């Protein structure tokens, strides 16, 4: 078997031939990296980016640089997670195609389905999903089920023919306009406690009754969708896991998410960019800016140490559990810190465009940074996980515990 070092070496050689190194402040296009958190891209450009990212993944796969830890049953190469990690670590140094929808498909949905799907689902979907030949979005959150995901109310009603009728509304569904499938959670039983009445489906988004509409976020762009479901008829083949077993599907995926997150350093607004800004604006000597620069640099360095610690723990066989909640909060805190620093550096130039380059555009970062305090498990939810699952603090009385879903107060 190829050693991890050999894999890393091979990856580097292959990348060197094909993609540029990720330089400090410039992107592949030779333009400065965007500092935005939510990029505002046209539909056509977004499709192109997604296609590039899929092609890139498949090319890596065909050259034994992706799918390393997938078994041959799914077209994989039968190596270990350590081999895959090594390629990721090397790849992080390069400026490669990327699209948010890909990791959802390949790192969350595909491994979940491998674990929980039927034999037929595994045969049909897992390989193509892992290679991103099929692309799948997450249909989890709802307007009335945000932090309380398990409070979802999209209804799945069993029909006489064994199939399902699904009605309801999903929200914050990233990439649903480009995906062929959506991994959907719906309530199939309101007479049991809330976690027990949820069923999961792999929903072809072409199905009649599915309406995907862009949702405009406060930054002005539309990175997300609302998905309306009106009497959507679905055969039972598309059910994932047991009837009433949807929460297990969700937690399985969220478990992979924990494992996968923390790598995404592609979002805009890095230390390098902040430093470049402070120098360009001549503010590195400003006593109101200096402590902020010191703290931003500290977070920049310690984020790398965090990654190394987590990698080391994983190699020792201690998989990341709820500790992912800490990383999420540290990462968000770092983004907020950068926002505050650039606000102090730019002053009025943060909020009104003088035409000077690389100044006003930082407002995109500042507006967007707020989003990740909410998205992907709000700060409040993460703190609760840390308190009860890492520190082991006791839970207090709760109004939704031990009673049928239909009896939980909603107003």
């Amino acid at each position, binding site marked *: 078997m190829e050693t991890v070092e050999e894999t890393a070496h091979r990856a580097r050689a292959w990348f060197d031939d094909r993609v540029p190194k990720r330089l400090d402040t410039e992107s592949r296009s030779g333009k400065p990296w965007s500092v935005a958190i939510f990029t505002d891209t046209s539909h056509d450009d977004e499709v192109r980016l997604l296609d590039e990212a899929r092609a890139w993944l498949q090319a890596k796969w065909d050259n034994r640089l992706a799918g390393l830890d997938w078994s041959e049953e799914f077209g994989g190469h039968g190596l270990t997670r350590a081999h895959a990690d090594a390629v990721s670590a090397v790849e992080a140094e390069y400026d490669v195609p990327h699209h948010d929808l890909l990791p959802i498909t390949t790192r969350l949905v595909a491994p979940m389905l491998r674990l929980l799907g039927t034999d037929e689902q595994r045969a049909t979907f897992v390989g193509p999903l892992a290679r991103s030949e099929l692309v799948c979005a997450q249909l989890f*959150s709802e*307007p009335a089920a945000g932090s309380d995901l398990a409070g979802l109310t999209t209804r799945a009603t069993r029909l006489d023919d064994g199939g399902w009728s699904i009605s309801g509304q999903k929200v914050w569904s990233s990439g649903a306009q480009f995906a062929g499938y959506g991994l959907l959670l719906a309530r199939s039983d309101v007479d049991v406690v809330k976690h027990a009445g949820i069923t999961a489906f792999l929903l072809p988004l072409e199905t009649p009754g599915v309406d995907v509409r862009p949702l405009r976020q406060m930054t002005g762009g539309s990175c997300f969708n609302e998905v309306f479901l009106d009497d959507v008829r679905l055969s039972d083949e598309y059910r994932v896991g047991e009837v009433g077993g949807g929460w297990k599907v969700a937690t399985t995926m969220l478990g992979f998410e924990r494992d996968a997150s923390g790598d995404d350093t592609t979002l805009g607004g890095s230390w390098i960019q902040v430093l470049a800004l402070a120098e360009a604006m001549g503010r590195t000597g400003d006593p109101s800016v200096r402590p902020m620069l010191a703290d931003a640099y500290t977070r920049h360095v310690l984020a790398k140490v965090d990654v190394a610690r987590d990698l080391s723990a994983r190699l020792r066989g201690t998989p990341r559990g709820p500790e992912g909640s800490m990383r999420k909060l540290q990462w968000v805190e770092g983004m907020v810190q950068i926002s505050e620093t650039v606000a102090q550096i730019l002053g009025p130039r943060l909020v009104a465009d*003088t035409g000077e380059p690389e100044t006003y555009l930082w407002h995109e970062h500042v*507006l967007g940074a*707020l989003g990740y305090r909410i998205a992907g498990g709000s700060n*409040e939810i993460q703190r609760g996980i840390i308190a009860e699952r890492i520190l082991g603090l006791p839970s207090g009385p709760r109004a939704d515990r031990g009673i049928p879903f239909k009896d939980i107060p909603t*107003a």
Partner: protein
Amino acid sequence: MSTTAGALLLTEPTDELRSMAEAVRSVLAAESPIERVAAVADGLDGLDAPLWRTLAQDLGVTGVLVPEAHGGLGLGWAEARVVLEALGSSLACVPFAPSCVVAVTLVLAAGDEGAAGDILPGIVDGSTVVAVALGDDSVLAPVSRSAVAAELGVDGAWVLTGDQPFVPYGTVADAILLLARTSDDEHGWFLVASDARGLSRSAMSVVDTTRPQALLRLESTPARLVGAVGRCDDLLAPVLDAAVAAAACEQLGASRHLLDLTVAYASTRFQFGQPIGSFQALQHRLADLAISIDTAASAVEYAVSAAPADPRQRAEAASISGVVCSETFYLAALETIQIHGGIGFTWEHQAHRYYRRALASRVALGSPAFHRERLLQSLAL
């Protein structure tokens, strides 16, 4: 150095003040609901002209600080404050603060009766919007030198040349007041008509579109000196103080609105079978916000009380309000979005409009760090 606030005279909430506030609020409720604000802000020039007419012609509040001799109401900061709080609370898209507070303060402080007679009546009846340019880097460090130069032409008239960014309502104003340097050591306030020769105005892209800003280019543009020339700091101080205190009143009004909005949402939004406002972590954060707003109210009270007092105390009070109210409003906007969750991050929700205002108003007239330094300087520290 000396300490102040020994014997504080606070403005008592009289019946007249209360009914004035009520009148402004009911006009705003009717004519400037958040949907209207959004439409104007997403529109062309960011000015709600019909509302401006109502405020000027039906309510007459545009003349609140203008002496009766010039057609105004001849009232004071206590009255201006209630108007500003209401406008801030609703994000109304009107140039009340720059034109009716800052420009009026400037003209009165200049002691130039001729200019007052020419400028103030138009401000009072709303027919003239006067913008005041305060910002370039002057708000990050005490300005010592404007980028605009003033020269006396052969005909004895002044002409100005230079660039002036960050002019609030600069594109819609009928006239602009700006600082220009008349010599190495001296500056003056100059009035430039919007149709003056050699003036070009371009709208700047802005985060807070309820508050348009312009970049002015002046090339030998004729201008009228208002008041006398003098040291830049001395000319700037009373005007900056008024602008900061006015912004503080607006920030307080907006913060209170956000607290009310968020408390109402938290009381009715259920998650986990409970109203989210019953979760203790959120309760404590809203309590902290309420405390911060109460502190901001004291800062506004002090700034308003000190507004006509001696220059040192006025600068002190203005800068205190510039720190406290900016930070409070920013906190309020952050908590509003966070507590509203996903819905608070959408374009359709009003939260981001307030966040944008909070972000912009926190830096527009000097950052909190700048005002901390300015406060210490007012204490000779």
